[in-house]
Structure formats: structure tokens, C-alpha cells
């Protein structure tokens, strides 16, 4: 039926995360299969991604891969992210304009936590600074030409000392790169293995974020390169019959586009995994006919949320692990709330997170003496049932989730609170705090930016998403929740759905007038050609390439630029005002418009993904159009929102298109549990998605005005969120 999709070969979509490597495979007959492996398991295999491929292809561990059977491998990896977090990149020298050796260390001089007694600043990524004797002014005038001889001496010394990576960051090079070009040529001549140059890496104004980005690229690219070469080498190595027959190996960039192994570099790799999640949620949501989506990816330690209303949203300024990055990245907001978030009580007020029990010891129910967490609260409430959870705990990895210790701990906590509330009420309250925290994160990317979140569908994925989806939706006033059959590995699936993408940016910083328009048109052509070249080199067919040019406009005197498609000035102004009004609630027609930057992106769509693949029975799903009521295995009960509910339990594999259930209920999936709260009704769509709909109106909650340790935290956070939203409003208003 699906026939020879993808040329009769296997395609692999891989998300190599810190703990797990998720793999979605498409077999030659078009069916999808899924596999989850531990990312690090040196006793069993050398590399999780390659091991997964071997298992699908039925090849012995360590044996050469039959590359002729593989069409493409699309992969996201946290290799660069982890090297950044753990400061394990390659030794890097920074070349910067004389007088500014410490500029990146000083940064904006602001401290991250204003109430910290001991201020801790992020460790710098470079290990040596070389001051380049040169100076260019903002208008491009050269005050002092580059002293090549002096630079040669310092760089040769650095190289001789074993430093093989260099980042070159000179003042105003985003617009006037001549000195950087000279310095880069010199560094390459001296023989540095990695030369990252700021005007190539991130040609945008602001030396601090551009410099940080360039240093990160120099520091991470070699690490990434070694990993990429290992994977690509195993896949395209000597076994390929001919060059044409070798599998295509593509990596996910933070911008949400795939890159060929040869062009994938450090600056693109920081949000590789989360980008797959955004693409996965947007594309699966779109296929399920939802136009407005909130992506909700809840895992063990953190939750990623994203907004999608037809276009991917990218940001050019992100801060990760103390490093300011100015490269296009899909807008993902991360909050430190997950299944492992620790529950604490200080005698008056409950808190949940931001500390996490992590992978080790993990939640208390994992039998390793861990603290009480959100996951434990769900065990306490009967929402997570050991009977339906893999028995992988205990010293021999064969025990079910532990419930007794969890019950005891919550009972002790209830005793400590001492106001007569039960252990269940405590656990229910902890869930409420966690849910409010995550809902506040979603408000940041929706309500705070002018979107009415009640019009959205929540696309829920990640290992802990299904336990909280209905509660999150209720808190936000959302009436629809989508759970894709691959929701446990949606980021990996997203790798398969992403296009190849190459983009170029350039700062402009000029008023919007005819002279600037001329410059924009010239640049759009030049940058578009460069991006197209890149995709052609990566093997994309010319006819499959689509070019889009965006102009980042802002009111004079503001720093918040909004991207609009490049067109006539009148059209751009109209688009700008429409977005501005939507985002900030007003426009200021009297203010002059400035062009901050131009961004040109070339995307190449993979035709082989155009057909919606059917989902294989291997992940426990029956394709078809079964309309009977689903088989009921048993009933259980869970506690939620201050009362017990009797709940039928359904196996995901028993649910088929057309099936409808009424909440409360539990749906047990291979990789997660979906808690269907009272008032919600799941329906299985023709594509085998679960679509949860709110069928009863929400009742207004009747709260007592007496102080409650759970609600104290909830209200504290709500009041704070209001003050923060006021602050965001103040910073974006033009003046």
C-alpha cells in the first residue's frame, strides 16, 4: 500500500539525548517503528544511534552497516550542548580588538541572580586572549590597520602551545569585515584546525553576543566534528558501493533545518534536540488539522514549550549556559519543571522544583532512595500505576515502581503539615503547583506575546506530558489536546519531518528608505545565492529549493525587531504594524522605521516525507478504522482535584480510529500514561492520534480565602508573573 517510499530503503530519524537515544525508523514498506536506547551503555554498544540502526537492520553489534539498505539518517544530537554545559570543548584562543580583551568576560556586567550572596559568573570558553592591534569605527573608517606581524607572532605561539581552535572577533566586523578576513587568512595559514570568524558565524551588531557565539563555535565545532565524522563515516564508509548509493546523513540545527554532515557546526548545534521537538509538534499538529499549537514537551528534569501558528518562530538572541548566542534558533522556552522536580515544604509553603532528582537517584518510587517528586505524587494519586509501568527498578532491574515508600513519605508530609489534610491532598497540591509553573511558562510564549492561548490546541509529548496534559489545558482554558502515536519520541520523528535549511543574516541598522531598499534587494540576491549554493552542495535538487527573505524592522529607539517578508516598503510597513499590534497591542505610526537586519533562508523539502506514513504494529498500534468501543481491561481509581474518581484503564494498542472514551480514564501507552481527567473525552482520529476534547464546561473553582500552603505558592507565582509581564510590556514599547 505505502509501496516503495524512500526508494525501498530504510530511513532513520534519531534524537540522541543526554539519557536516551530515541529512534524512529521507516522501513522500506513505509511503516514506522520506534526504539529507545540508553545513550551511554559502553558494555553493550559503542554508539547508541548506530546500534539502533543495526538492530533494525538485524546486523550484529559491531558489524559493518549494510549502507546500501539505508536511504537517509536524520539526526539531532546533544553532543555540542553537553560539551557546552560541561565545558568540555577544545582549547580555544580568542582574537579581539585591542583594549577589549576582557569584554566578553565583563559581558553586560549584570549578574544573573540579583539576591545571590556569592555571585558566580559563567566560566569563559576560551583559554587565551590575543589582542589584535587594529581599530575600525562604527562607520567603517579604519583608525588603525591590523598589525599582521604582531598577530602572526601571538597566533603562532598559541598554536605552538597546543591551541588548535581560534575565534576572531573584531569591532564592527559585522559590517566591515576586512580586518577579520585578514586575521582569518593568517590563522588558517598558521594551521589552526578550527577558525571561527565573527562576521561569518553571526554577522549581527553587538560584539558581546556575536563574540560569544563565535567563541562557542570555535570551542564546540571540533567536538561536534569528531562525533559527526564517526557517525557519517560508519554510514558512508568503504561499504558504500558507489557515491550515489551512500545514505544521506543530515543533522538537525537549532534553527529547525537539517544540515549535511560537512556543514553542521558548533553554532548550529546547541538546541538540536529541542528543535526536533518543535518541528515534530508543528508538523504532526498540522497533519491533524490544527493551525494553532502549543508544544508541551515534559520530561524528567525540564519542560520545553513552544508556540506555532503557521510559521516557525525564530529568535536571534538566546542565552544558554551563560553563553549569549546570536544565531537563528527556534523559539523554545524551557522551565525547570519535570517528573523529577522535588517537592519541599518549609513549614508554611510548598514548593515544587526547580531542583530535580535527576536520573540518579531519580524519584522515590525508582527504589534508589530519591526524594519525593512530581512523579511520586502521580504514583500516590494512582495516576501512575506500577502494574502498567515497566518493571525495571531495584538492584536487578526487575522490580516495579515502589508505592509503599511513596505513601509513607506523603503521609509523613501530611503529618508535618498537620492541618488535617490527607496524603492524597498533599500530592494533588504538589501536582497543582507543578502544573501552574508549566502553565506560566506557556503564558510567557503565548499570552505575554499577545496570543489568545484559549484558541490553541496543546500538542503534548515527552515522557511525563500525558500525566498532566488535561490539567495544563484546564489551567490555560485550552479545550483540545493532541497526543500523537509517537508522542514518546516526537523529537526524533521531528528530525524526519524537517526540511534542509541554509540561512544567511546581515545587520543593516539603517532607516527604511529607498537607499536601504536598494541595499536590501542586492543583499537578498547575494545571501540567497549563497544559501542556495550551500543546499545544492548538500545534495538538494535545485527545483526543491524555496527561498524566503525576511527583513527585521523596528521602530527607531526600540530594540525589539520584528521579521516581515521582504517586499515593497508599503507592504512591509503594513505587515510590521499588523504583527506589532498583535504582539504589543498598539502601533506608533509617527515613529520612523529602522531596518535592523536581513535574513534569507533557503529550504529544501524532502519529497519522500510528503506521504503520511502509516504506523506500524511494532509500537503497539492497530491501523484500521475500527469503530467499536475499545476493550476495557480493568478499572482503577485515581485522585485528582480534591476527589477520587473511578477510572477505566485502556491499553493504547486496543484503541483504534473512531474509538471514543469518556474521562476520567487512564490510557496506557508504551512510553507514557495519559491521564484523562473528568470532563475530558479522548477520541482516536483516522491517523491514530488521540484528540482529547473538553466536553463539560469548567466549573469555577470555589476557593476559601484562608491561607493554604499549596495556594500560597500558586498565588505567589501568579502575582510575580503579572509583574514580569508588566516588565516585558515596558521594554518593547517604542519611544
Amino acid at each position, binding site marked *: 500500500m505505502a509501496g516503495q517510499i524512500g526508494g525501498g530503503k530504510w530511513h532513520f530519524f534519531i534524537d540522541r539525548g543526554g539519557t536516551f537515544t530515541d529512534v524512529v525508523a521507516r522501513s522500506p514498506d513505509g511503516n514506522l517503528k520506534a526504539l529507545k536506547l540508553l545513550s551511554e551503555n559502553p558494555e553493550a554498544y559503542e554508539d547508541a544511534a548506530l546500534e539502533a540502526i543495526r538492530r533494525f537492520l538485524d546486523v550484529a553489534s559491531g558489524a559493518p552497516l549494510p549502507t546500501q539498505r539505508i536511504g537517509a539518517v536524520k539526526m539531532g544530537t546533544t553532543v555540542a550542548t553537553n560539551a557546552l554545559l560541561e565545558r568540555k570543548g577544545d582549547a580555544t584562543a580568542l582574537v579581539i580588538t585591542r*583594549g*577589549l*580583551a*576582557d*569584554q566578553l*568576560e*565583563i559581558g*553586560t*556586567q*549584570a*549578574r544573573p541572580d*540579583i*539576591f545571590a*550572596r*556569592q*555571585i558566580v559568573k559563567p566560566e569563559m570558553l576560551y583559554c587565551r586572549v590575543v589582542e589584535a592591534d587594529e*581599530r575600525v*569605527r*562604527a562607520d567603517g573608517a579604519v583608525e588603525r590597520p591590523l598589525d599582521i606581524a604582531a598577530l602572526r607572532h601571538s597566533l603562532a605561539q598559541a598554536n605552538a602551545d597546543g591551541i588548535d581552535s581560534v575565534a576572531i572577533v573584531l*569591532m*564592527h566586523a*559585522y559590517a566591515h569585515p576586512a580586518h577579520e578576513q585578514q586575521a582569518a587568512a593568517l590563522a588558517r595559514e598558521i594551521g589552526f584546525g578550527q577558525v571561527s570568524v565573527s562576521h561569518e558565524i553571526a554577522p549581527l*551588531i*553587538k*560584539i*558581546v553576543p556575536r563574540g560569544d557565539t563565535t567563541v562557542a563555535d570555535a570551542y564546540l565545532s571540533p567536538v561536534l566534528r569528531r562525533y559527526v565524522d564517526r557517525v557519517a563515516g560508519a554510514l558512508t564508509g568503504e561499504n558504500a558501493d558507489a557515491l550515489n548509493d551512500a545514505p544521506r546523513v543530515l543533522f538537525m540545527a537549532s534553527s529547525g533545518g537539517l544540515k549535511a554532515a560537512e556543514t553542521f557546526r558548533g553554532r548550529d548545534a546547541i538546541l538540536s534536540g529541542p528543535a526536533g521537538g518543535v518541528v515534530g509538534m508543528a508538523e504532526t499538529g498540522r497533519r491533524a488539522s490544527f493551525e494553532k499549537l502549543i508544544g508541551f514537551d515534559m520530561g524528567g528534569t525540564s519542560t520545553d514549550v513552544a508556540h506555532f501558528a503557521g510559521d516557525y518562530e525564530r529568535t536571534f538572541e538566546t542565552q544558554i549556559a551563560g553563553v549569549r548566542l546570536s544565531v537563528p534558533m527556534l523559539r523554545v522556552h524551557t522551565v525547570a519543571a519535570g517528573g523529577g522536580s522535588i517537592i519541599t515544604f*518549609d513549614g*508554611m*509553603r510548598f514548593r515544587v522544583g526547580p531542583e530535580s532528582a535527576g536520573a540518579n537517584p531519580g524519584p522515590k518510587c525508582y527504589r534508589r532512595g530519591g526524594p519525593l517528586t512530581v512523579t511520586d505524587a502521580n504514583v500516590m494519586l494512582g495516576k501512575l500505576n506500577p502494574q502498567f509501568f515497566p518493571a525495571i527498578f531495584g538492584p536487578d532491574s526487575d522490580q516495579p515502581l515502589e508505592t509503599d515508600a511513596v505513601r509513607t513519605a506523603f503521609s509523613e508530609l501530611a503529618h508535618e503539615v498537620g492541618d488535617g489534610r490527607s496524603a492524597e491532598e498533599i500530592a494533588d497540591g504538589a501536582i497543582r503547583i507543578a502544573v501552574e509553573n508549566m502553565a506560566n511558562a506557556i503564558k510567557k510564549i503565548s499570552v505575554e506575546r499577545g496570543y489568545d492561548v484559549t484558541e490553541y490546541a496543546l500538542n503534548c509529548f515527552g515522557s511525563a506530558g500525558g500525566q498532566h496534559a488535561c490539567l495544563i489545558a484546564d489551567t490555560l482554558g485550552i479545550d483540545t489536546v493532541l497526543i500523537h502515536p509517537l508522542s514518546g519520541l516526537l523529537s526524533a520523528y521531528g528530525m524526519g519531518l524537517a526540511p534542509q535549511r541554509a540561512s544567511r543574516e546581515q545587520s543593516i*541598522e539603517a532607516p527604511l528608505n529607498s537607499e536601504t531598499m536598494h541595499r536590501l534587494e542586492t543583499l537578498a540576491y547575494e545571501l540567497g545565492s549563497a544559501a542556495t549554493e550551500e543546499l545544492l552542495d548538500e545534495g538538494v535538487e535545485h527545483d526543491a529549493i524555496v527561498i524566503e527573505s525576511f527583513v527585521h524592522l523596528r521602530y527607531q*529607539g526600540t*530594540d525589539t525587531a520584528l521579521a516581515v517578508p521582504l517586499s515593497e516598503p508599503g507592504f512591509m510597513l503594513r505587515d510590521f504594524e499588523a504583527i506589532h499590534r498583535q504582539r*504589543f*497591542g*498598539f502601533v506608533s505610526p509617527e515613529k520612523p522605521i529602522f531596518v535592523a537586519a536581513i535574513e534569507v533562508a533557503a529550504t529544501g523539502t524532502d519529497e519522500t516525507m510528503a506521504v503520511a506514513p502509516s504506523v506500524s504494529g511494532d509500537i503497539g498500534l492497530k491501523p484500521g478504522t475500527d469503530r467499536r468501543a475499545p476493550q476495557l481491561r480493568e478499572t482503577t481509581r485515581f485522585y485528582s482535584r480534591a476527589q477520587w474518581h473511578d477510572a477505566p484503564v485502556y491499553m493504547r494498542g486496543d484503541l483504534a480510529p473512531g474509538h471514543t472514551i469518556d474521562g476520567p480514564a487512564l490510557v496506557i501507552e508504551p512510553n507514557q500514561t495519559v491521564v484523562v481527567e473528568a470532563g475530558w473525552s479522548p477520541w482516536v482520529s483516522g491517523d491514530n492520534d488521540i484528540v482529547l476534547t473538553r466536553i463539560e464546561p469548567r466549573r*469555577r*473553582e470555589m476557593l*476559601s*480565602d484562608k*491561607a493554604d500552603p499549596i*495556594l*500560597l505558592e500558586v*498565588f*505567589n507565582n*501568579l*502575582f*510575580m*508573573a*503579572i*509583574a*514580569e*509581564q*508588566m*516588565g516585558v*510590556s*515596558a*521594554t*518593547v*514599547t517604542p*519611544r
Partner: protein
Amino acid sequence: MNIKERLDFSCAVFDANGALVANAPHLPVHLGSMDRSVETIIRARSGEMRPGDAYMLNAPYNGGTHLPDITVITPVFDETGTRVVFYVASRGHHEDIGGLTPGSMTPRATTIEEEGVLIDNFHLVDRGRFLENETRALLSGGKYPARRPDKNIADLKAQIAANAKGEAELRRMVKHFGLDVVSAYMRHVQDNAEEAVRRLLAKLDDGHYRVETDQGTAVEVRITVDRENRSAKVDFNGTSAQQPNNFNAPEPVTRAAVLYTFRVMVDEPIPMNAGCLKPIEITIPEGSMLRPTYPAAVVAGNVETSQIVTNALFGALNALGSSQGTMNNLTFGNDRVQYYETLCSGAPAGPGFDGAAAVHVHMTNTRLTDPEILELRYPVLLEEFSIRRGSGGKGQWHSGDGTRRVIRFLERMHCAILSGYRTVHPFGLNGGGPGETGSNAVRRGDGSVEDIGGCAETLLEPGEAIIISTPTGGGFGTP
């Protein structure tokens, strides 16, 4: 520029009595002082406020701190529009509010009139209508009017918009939970914060410290803890009298410093609201430099004296070594542009740790404008911005290193610096050595370098440069 690039603003939510409920503080100095502005408006306008109204003030003797910081206050009414149930407020540092020099941070003023336009309880928005003409007249009036009222008005509109956002979100919350519940929790969160501070107080010791300044004045504080009642008295008796300069700090500044210090001491993410100060009785002698009387000049109180008070408090608590004790306020400008920045030194040393180099501490946390933006928008060239390695005060634990900044001007420019610890060394604590003094100098066209002292104004010709070295905190503990 100030509000957006430097994040020199704060927004807050208050209950019906004007008590702080929640604050998104970018700057600690705004914390614990904005409620005084709200209280002033309640006192003066009670009964006459109508839905859609907003008020503003900067009056240092009536709820404000210094003239550039303008606070906009919006009452939030109940559904019937008859009763004020909450207030929202936003405070932003305006680039210029008039006064003797561009940027309104003159070191020369001896009276408040010379510092700029005084705004005392001004009706800014009347039932939804922005009173632009009246506002413009106010800003353009007085002996030293604002230089660019258009910019002030744009900033004020941003503040009004921020308040409108706060009002809308509060309404949404009331709709969801009911007014009774929201109002009740505004009280509960204050009680909760009060309790958190009381727990800290039960563990604190009495203390006393006296900090000297370049002006020959001193800030003295005595902290007396009643462990049984879990309360404390913070008494500033012994502090110098009000001065004929602008280092006088209106009372809310010291209050903000006390609140900040105790919040740091708690060492936990407790809610920051009016409850925090309930167990603490603050005594500030009338007519002292920490509670000056009209018409004393005050512009440095908010940005300089606040850091000195904080040093005294941490000294009395024996908790942290001194910081640089200044913000190094640099302003420059002409008729076309005005610019303001504050410069960091290192972080204080403490028991068990050295201070980090080059980072803003205590009452400020403004972001510095990126060098490329600075040079694109202003006729200047940043010749150097570096860390003075090894400059932090020595001790068992060293203070963080300070910075050096050299800005060359490409056009004729008026320049003013307001700073401290150019002659007195920041103190060492518990046997730690003192920090280094800072310096301000001008490199003239002929190459000569001229020290201009801690508080100075000067005119720079194209090619001339200002050179600032920030002082460093003292060490902690005997080396």
C-alpha cells in the same frame, strides 16, 4: 535607552492599602521604595480617583527617590468602578529630566531645583486620556527644564502601557478566582514573607558598623536582634547630617537597602513583598543624610549612598566584605544626545569565597550598552574596557577585581561623573585588607592626563578621553 537597553526599570503590584504584593525587580534599589510612591498617591488622591486614571511622581520628599526615576501609578477598580482594589506601578529611569547638566546626574547641584523637574503627585491620565499638553508643560517648565520632553513622554507611555498590562492580568485573575480570594492571598503572601524573614532574624546576631565616605561623612548603623520576638531594630543614628551636596538619600532608598540586605541574608527564594519589612523597625534620624529635608539635592543618594548603606549593613551583619561602594555614574551629552551608564567593579568577598571580577553588585544591576551600539549611536570610541587584574582587596578571601574604561569622544561633549571611593579605601572586614581606590581622569588633546576627582563635570574636545578606574571592595578575613 535606559529602560530598554539597561533595564533600569521595575514593575510592581500593590494591594488596596498600597502594600507591595509582588515585584519584578531588575534593580534592588527600586524594591522597597516604590510603595512609598503609591502611599503618597493614596494619601493625596483617595476618593477622587476614577477608573482609567494614572498618576506620576518623582518627588524625593514625597514618595520618590531621585528625579530621573519617575513612577507611574494606576489604581485598579472593582467591577462596579467604585472602589480601588489594587494598584499597579512602574518606575523607569529617564535619560534626562532637566537640571544643570544633560543626563540629569549633575555633581554640582546643591538644591533639588538644580537637579531638574520635580513632579509631585501629577495627574497623568484622566479617565483614559493621556494629559499630554499638561505633561509637556510640566516637563518644559521650571528653571532647568527637561531637554527632550518627547523622549520622556514616550517613556511615560511605555510605563502606562506596562500598568495597563498589569491591570488586565489582575482583572483576569479576579475573574478566575474571585476578588475575595485574590485580595485574601495578597495578604497571605505578605504574611508568608514576614514569617520567612522572622525565621532569619531568630538566627542573627547584633551588630554595628560605621562606613566613611569621600565626602568626610559617615553612615552608621546598629542592628539589634530580638531573637525571642524574632524582630530586629536597624538604627542609623550616628549617621552624618544632611549635606550641601547631592549624596543625601531620601528615606525610601535606605529602606530599599535594608530590604535588599535581609533578602540576601535569607538565602532562599522567598517572595519579596511588604511583609519582609514588617518584623524590622528602621530608625533614621530626621535631617540626616539618610532622611534629608527639602530642598537638599539628592541625585547621588539613590545611586551612591544606597551602596554605602548596603556596605554598612553587611558590615554590621559581618556577612560580606565591602563592595566598591559606588556605581561610577558617567553621563555625557550635548544638545543632540544624552547618555548614562554605571560601571561595575568586582563582587564582595565573603566567608568561604572570593568575589567574582567585573560584575554589578547590590543595589544596581543595569546592563551596559554593547560597545558597537554605543559607538553606532553616540560619537564616541571605546578604547579600553578591561579588568584590573589583582586589584580586589586582599584577605583570607579576596574581593573581586575592578575595571578600567577609556572612552574617547569624537565630538565636543559635556561629561559628568558622580562617584565615590576615590580617596577613601573601601574597608576590609574581619582583618581583611582594604580595597583600592578608584580614579577619574581626562586625557587632554596635548596628551596630558588630568585627574578630575570623584564628582566632576568637564567639557571634552574631539580626541579627548575620559578614563575611569573603579574602586574595589576590601578583603574578608585575615590573610
